[in-house]
Each structure stands twice: as structure tokens, then as C-alpha cells.
């Protein structure tokens, strides 16, 4: 492993998808918790806590998709055509999530709001689940033929292990979203969110422990890399500490630190995933020789270099606006007439 363009692009695509999980993760988590309260005002506060930022957060996924297309077109083509139905379900979920936020507040009728509330919550849960199932399949391995085409079926994607990753993702995003909600709200809703956060943490910890055991027991190709490079175990350790730190900070009422810990948990999970997958992007099972790697699935070096220049120009600007938007909209949510 040395620092070449393919490796840099592996990292950059990884950063985009990690950014997506860390940012849109809490939006999807808020969505998953949305129906837990049935007071209109509280639901509005929940929606408006992500109101100014969810759209920008979703852009990380869109740009991640674009970067995958540009840097590793074979992976983009194989994964998206192979996961055809799952991907369209994800798109439908993201669409319902998005329009529900926009449409909900436009009419006062109860049925209208209820309809979009359900669409918002269902869209958020299903999106998180499908994203997790997709990651789980990549970790487990999918059948790929000698032409680099997906050789499985839709039902074949719904194996227990990927489903477990899916449920864990839902739990992780719910925890992440609940803590975000705690930071953005006050009063009764804030107190309710504190209770939900504790339950979400328990749900997530159970999932995480189960997933770790399942990975060690049933996904034999994932562990060797850490065994060969024992220092990589520090990432697993960091991940565990980050997860353990969430309830610790939360109990002491240090919500911001608890949120940063759940961000760190997401980042370290993605790093672990990347460490185990590298250099494959789609691991082929049962024929590992057909795997799509960062070398056999990449664009030409020239394109990777041009794209790197684009990324170097674009990323500082992206970080600048992201930070300023979060700064402008810091603090507790106050409803006003521009709110959803």
C-alpha cells in the first residue's frame, strides 16, 4: 500500500460517504424518532431542528455518488445495476423524506400533516436500513462474474448479516439523531428526547456487540488485515471507546461532547469498514479473483489527477460553507413564520 492516486481517491470517496453518514445520519435519526411524539408543535420543532441543514447534508451522498462514478466507474456501474431494486427503493425513500419536510407545514389539516409525518418517518427509517444493508453486502461480499457484472439476485441481498448491519445503522442514526435533538431543543420535548436517547444508546450497543460477534464469527476475510497489522487494532479500540463515551458524556449532561463521540463512533466504524475492504471496493464471493479493486475498477490516472485538482479547489469551499451554516443556525430551535 503506497500513496498513489487510486488510494487517494479511495480515501476521498470514503470521506464523502463518511461525511454523509455523520451529517445526514442525524437527519435520518430525527426522522426515525419523529412519530414518537404526537404533538404537532413538537413534531415541528423536530423538523425545524434539521430544516436548514438536511438538504446540504444529502449533497454529501449525491457528490459521493458522482465521485464514485468519476473515480471508479466500474464500481458505480456494477453496484448500481446489481442493487437495482434496492437502489430504487432507497431513492423512493429519500424522495419521500425530502418532500415530506417541505410539504408537511403547508396545510393545517390533521390528515395532511399525519400523512407527511408518516412519509418522513418511514422514508428516514427505510433509507437508513437500505444504506446499512448495502454496506453489509459489500462487507460480506456479493457474487461478481468474470466480466465484473453482478451475478446475484435481489433476494440474495437480504442475507442475515447485511440485515443486521442495516438494523445497526438504524440504531446508530437514531442515537446520533436523538443526541442532536437534545442539543437543539428545550422544555418538555428536550426531556422526552433525553429519555429516548438513553433507550437508543442501549439499542445501538446491543446491535453493535451482536454485529461485532457476527463479523468475527461469520465474515472470515475481514479479520486478517488487522491480524497482519496489529497496530490497526487501535482503530477498533478507538471505536469502542467512542461508543462507550457516548453514554458517559450524556449522563453528565455534556450533550455536545456526547454528539462528538457519536460522530467519532461513525467515523471509526467507517474507517474499520474501509480497512477491511481495502483494496477491494466490491468484494466478490465466492470468486474473490473477480473482485473490483481500486486498481481494476478505476478511471485513468489523468482523470484521477484532474479530479484531484477539482477536489482540492472544491473541498475547502465546501467545508467553509458547511461550518458557516452550522454557525449561523447554532443554538436551540425557535419556530417563526419561515419555519416548516
Amino acid at each position: 500500500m503506497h500513496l498513489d492516486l487510486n488510494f487517494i481517491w479511495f480515501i476521498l470517496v470514503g470521506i464523502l460517504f463518511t461525511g454523509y453518514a455523520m451529517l445526514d445520519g442525524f437527519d435520518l435519526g430525527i426522522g426515525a424518532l419523529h412519530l414518537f411524539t404526537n404533538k404537532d408543535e413538537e413534531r415541528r420543532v423536530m423538523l425545524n431542528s434539521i430544516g436548514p441543514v438536511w438538504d446540504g447534508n444529502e449533497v454529501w451522498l449525491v457528490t459521493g455518488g458522482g465521485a464514485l462514478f468519476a473515480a471508479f466507474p466500474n464500481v458505480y456501474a456494477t453496484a448500481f445495476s446489481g442493487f437495482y431494486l434496492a437502489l430504487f427503493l432507497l431513492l423512493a425513500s429519500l424522495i419521500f423524506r425530502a418532500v415530506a419536510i417541505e410539504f408537511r407545514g403547508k396545510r393545517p389539516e390533521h390528515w395532511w400533516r399525519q400523512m407527511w409525518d408518516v412519509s418522513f418517518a418511514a422514508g428516514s427509517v427505510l433509507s437508513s436500513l437500505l444504506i446499512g444493508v448495502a454496506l453489509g453486502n459489500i462487507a460480506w461480499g456479493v457474487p461478481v462474474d468474470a466480466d465484473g457484472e453482478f451475478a446475484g439476485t435481489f433476494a440474495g441481498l437480504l442475507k442475515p448479516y447485511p440485515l443486521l448491519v442495516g438494523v445497526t445503522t438504524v440504531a446508530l442514526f437514531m442515537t446520533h439523531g436523538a443526541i442532536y435533538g437534545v442539543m437543539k431543543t428545550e422544555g418538555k420535548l428536550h426531556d422526552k428526547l433525553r429519555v429516548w436517547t438513553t433507550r437508543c444508546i442501549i439499542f445501538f450497543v446491543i446491535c453493535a456487540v451482536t454485529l461485532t460477534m457476527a463479523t468475527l464469527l461469520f465474515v472470515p476475510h475481514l479479520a486478517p488485515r488487522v491480524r497482519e497489522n496489529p497496530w490497526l487494532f487501535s482503530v477498533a479500540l478507538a471505536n469502542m471507546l467512542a461508543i462507550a463515551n457516548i453514554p458517559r458524556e450524556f449522563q453528565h449532561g455534556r450533550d455536545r461532547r456526547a454528539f462528538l463521540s457519536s460522530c467519532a463512533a461513525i467515523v471509526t466504524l467507517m474507517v474499520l469498514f474501509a480497512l477491511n475492504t481495502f483494496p477491494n471496493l466490491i468484494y466478490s464471493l465466492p470468486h474473490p479473483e473477480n473482485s473490483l479493486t481500486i486498481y481494476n475498477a478505476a478511471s485513468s490516472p489523468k482523470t484521477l489527477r484532474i479530479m484531484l485538482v477539482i477536489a482540492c479547489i472544491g473541498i475547502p469551499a465546501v467545508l467553509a460553507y458547511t461550518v458557516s451554516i452550522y454557525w449561523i443556525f447554532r443554538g436551540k430551535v425557535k419556530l417563526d413564520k419561515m419555519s416548516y
Partner: protein
Amino acid sequence: MDVLTLSRVQFGATIAFHYIYPPLSIGLGVMLVLMEGLWLKTGKSVYHQMARFWTKVFALTFAMGVATGIVMEFEFGTNWATYSRFVGDVFGSALAAEGIFAFFLESGFLAVLLFGWEKVGRKLHFFSTCMVCLGAHFSAVWIVVANSWMQTPAGYHIVGQGLKARAEITDFWQLVFNPSMVDRLLHTVCGAWCAGAFLVVSISAWYLLKKIHVEFARASLKAGLAVALLASLLQAITGDRNAKGVAKNQPAKLAAFEGLYETRSNAPLTIVGWVDEKNEKTSGIRVPGMLSFLARGDFHAPVTGLKEFKPADRPPVTASFLFFHAMAGLGFGLIGIALLGIWYLRQDTLHERRWLLWMLVLSALGPQIANQLGWFAAEVGRQPWLVYGLMRTPEGLSAVVKANAVLATLVLFTFIYFLLFAVFIYVLNDKIQHGPDDADLIPSGKLALPTRH
């Protein structure tokens, strides 16, 4: 139906539905910059009220654009995987650049535009509005770069053979400024300005018909008509430049647009007419030599006809002809409507002419239909090629996706999109019925601070 037809219908349907919204975001973005700029400059509160009301309409179109746009980003991979492998090196770069340069800019500042009215000062808010508008235009730039490369590929070479062949970049700037890109971008952006401006014109005219929110409606109508006239005139000029480009780069497409079978000098322009594909003849009202002049700049210059191409290399003639002519006709109609509106507005008799106000109300549909037809013409005229001269449409399909899967998603998305469209119209109508908020005549929060002169 086979996978090819289903995938083409699906791509066409999802892109056509998506394309209702981005032009509105681009055009309304320009209108918002204009209105808020006028407010900052003059301090007149009606401009503040306008900016606030049209921001709400903008937010709605923007949300629909985002929700339907994410499908497009992934659909190349799902249905056109072979195409994606073939062009990823070139085409993927443009999509990624769109994400990095356009979407982040747009969505970041959108938050300030929509929710920041009372959180930031006037100047920072105006700056955010400008950035959202700029982001929307950047998005058009990269998408048109990608699409134009499919029409007139440049700056690439083909590496590998058979299934492993793919296009790789040789010169990035040649790729970006491929022969048709600049003209097509200008034409697309002018179409988007028309879409936004005529929507403002339409809703304002409706208020004048109903005699409600009169002061607001008059000010909005004035701004809307000014941009509408400018954009529709520019649209004719950029259209003419495009025709010359198509004649040079995609002669089969131009011949199909005009239903020209025989290569001839002094080629006529058909104003209205029809194509008889069986006998390979086109009849109708024609202006002799005009096509030669428009395409080549000389009434006697020869224009290539369809017979120069093998039948397998010709685009569908009737469809291209009809889409193209309907688009051009609508375009000239819009110039006429904008001129009439401005004429009577200056005479201050517009509010008495109900027939014209009704025409203005309906005018919002004009650019929408013309934009759709223009893209239909551009894409149908590119057939049978997916990438002009390099890859035929059936060759780009995903190898592993079956017809029943495409049918299932086509049915699902048709249902979802009809539902969304109905809700969009319902909510838009609701906003129009509600009208501008009189409370917006008095800016509050940080906006209330007087600007320094």
C-alpha cells in the same frame, strides 16, 4: 416491452419530470436576486414583500428539484451500466464537479436564503441569495457540459477494445468546451430564465385579473416582463447559434429537425408542415433558401440531407421535426406575449385588457413546454447514438437488469411522480391563493436595521 424501450421510457420520464423544476429554480433565482437587489437599492418595502413571497415559491420548486434530481445521479449506473463504464472517465467527472461546485454552494446558502431572513443582516442575506442563484447556474453548466459531450464528444481517446473499450480524457478543457457546449449552455440557461420570469408574470397577472394585491402584482409583473422579454429574445439568438452548430457538428440531426431528405443548396425552411417518412418528403409552408441562410449563413449554401445517412444512422424524423418546430414556435410566441405585455404596461392600460392578462396567466406553461420539447428534440435528434458517433443507444444498457425490474420501478416512479406533481400543484396553488403577506411590508429582525448609504 423490452429492456431497451422500458429503460428509455424510464429515463425520459424521470428526466422530463425532474426538468420541470431546475429551470424554475434558475429563473426564479435570477428574479430573487433582482427583487432583493432592488430592495437594497431603493429601500421600497414592496420589493421586500416580493422577495419574501417569491422565496416561498422558489423553496417549493427547489425542494422538488432536489428530491427528483437525486434519481438522475444514480440512474446512469442502474439502467445504463455499460454506458457508465464506457464514459465514466469523462462523464463522471462532470457530475462530480457539479456536486462539489454547484450543489454544496446552492444547498448551503439556501439555508440562509430560506431561514436566515431574521438571523443575518441584509447584505449577507443578499449575498446568500446571489450564491444560491450562482450555484443553480453552475449546476446547469456541468450538466450541459456532460450532455454536450454526448452530442459532440471532444478531448478524449478510446482505450481498449470490445466490451473493455472506454473513453478516457486527453484534454480536460477540450472536453469541457466541446464544440456544442457554450451555445447549448446559453440556450438552456435562457430557457430557464424564461421559465422563472414567466411564472412570476403569470401569477402577478392573475392577481391583477382578480384585482387583489395590486401594488405587489404590478411591481412583480414589471420585473417579470422585463426579464421575460430579455430572456426570450436572447433565446432566439442562442437558438440560431445552436442551429448553426448542429448543422456543422450533427448534420443528421439538423436534417431531421427540418425534415430535409435531399442534400441541396438554397434549402427551404419549413414554418409549419409535416413529414411523410414513407415517401421521404416534407411539405408545408416553406421559405426558400432560409434554411441554408440560418444553418450556413448563405442563402445558396448546401445543407446536408438525411439521404446522405444510412437509414440505421438517421434519427426518428417525424418526432425530431415536430418537437423542434413546436419549440421554435412557442419561443417566438413568448417573445410576442412579452412584447405585448410590456407595451400595454408602459401605456398603463394593461389592467383593462383582460384577454392579455389571461394570456399572461397561461404564459407560464409556454417556457415549460418549450424547454421540454427542446430537450426532446436535442435527445431524440441525437439518436440512434447514445454518444454521438461512438456508442449506439442499445449498447449502453445494463447487462444484468431485467425487463420486469425496470417495469416495476417505472410503474413505482410514475405513481410517485404523479402523486408528487399533484401535491406540488396543490401546494403551489395554496401559496398563490394565500398571496403575499402584508406583514412583509415592514421588515423585522436584523433586516429592519437601516442600510448605510
